């Protein structure tokens, strides 16, 4: 081995020889049919994925419509009173009820404790 320049040239020659020793091969008889089989198989996979996505989108849309309809439907709600809480409380325990406002009975004959 002389110098780096010489090594460079030798490497070039070696790579040239490599190119000559590796010619482009002839394709086999099954190359084209094999290629088209792979293309068709990929197309089928893409198509079925596409179909699956469409099915999913349709189902999601149908679900959204159903939920929307459910939310929008008028329902019979319990009658809502216009009274405030305090008003309702006062109504329930009015001061006019006899237990609260009846006359206080005092029995004078009863012995005191």
């Amino acid at each position, binding site marked *: 081995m002389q110098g780096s320049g010489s090594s460079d040239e*030798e490497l070039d020659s070696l790579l040239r020889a*490599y190119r000559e020793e590796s010619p482009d091969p002839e*394709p086999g008889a099954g190359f084209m049919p094999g290629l088209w089989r*792979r293309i068709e198989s990929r197309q089928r996979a893409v198509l079925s994925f596409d179909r699956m996505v469409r099915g999913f989108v349709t189902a999601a849309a149908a679900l959204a419509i159903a939920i929307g309809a459910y939310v929008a439907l008028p329902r019979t709600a319990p009658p809502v009173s216009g009274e405030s809480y305090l008003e309702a409380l006062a109504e329930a325990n009015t001061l006019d009820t006899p237990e609260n406002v009846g006359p206080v009975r005092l029995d004078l004959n009863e012995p005191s404790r």
Partner: protein
Amino acid sequence: MLVEFELIRRAQQGDSEAFNKVVLAYRKRVLGTVGRLIARTEDVEDVAQEVFLRLYFSLDQLRAPEVFEPWLYRLTVNAAYDYLRKHRRRPEYRMSDLTEQQVMMADAAAGGRVERDASQQRKVREAVDSLLGAVSEADRILLLMKEVEGLSLRELEKIYRVKENALKVRLFRARQRVLKAFEAAEQKRQNG
């Protein structure tokens, strides 16, 4: 170009017959390039089919038929690189690990001093494949595209979409590494 631009345009529009003609025109070249890049004859057709499969499904993204060849080379390089990443069985030994006979064969081939028969051809290929084990998969492919496939820096720039100067630096470093392995093997042979 091995085909007319019109044929590429027709293939881009989904004409299967035109696509078939494109494949027929380029398959031998692609098989050769793939064979040299992956260095495994048993999988060459499979990887080449993968190249054309990718071509079929990406042809509509090709902006002009004029850039078809760099586009096809890019697909070839990518498919070979993907294959090599998946099958990390590439011999990682260096030229210095080669047998005396292999080194002598490489040396003789480098000097162009040998009439080669089939077994000698195989040895030259093995010697170069081993030498290229001195660099990474990516650098090996780059080096082969430049030194063996004979692509120019401008063509490589289109394929890799990297500036010419960056490619030059990367190629120089890869070549230096291979050269170092080559010189080490030579040294070993002379001393041994």
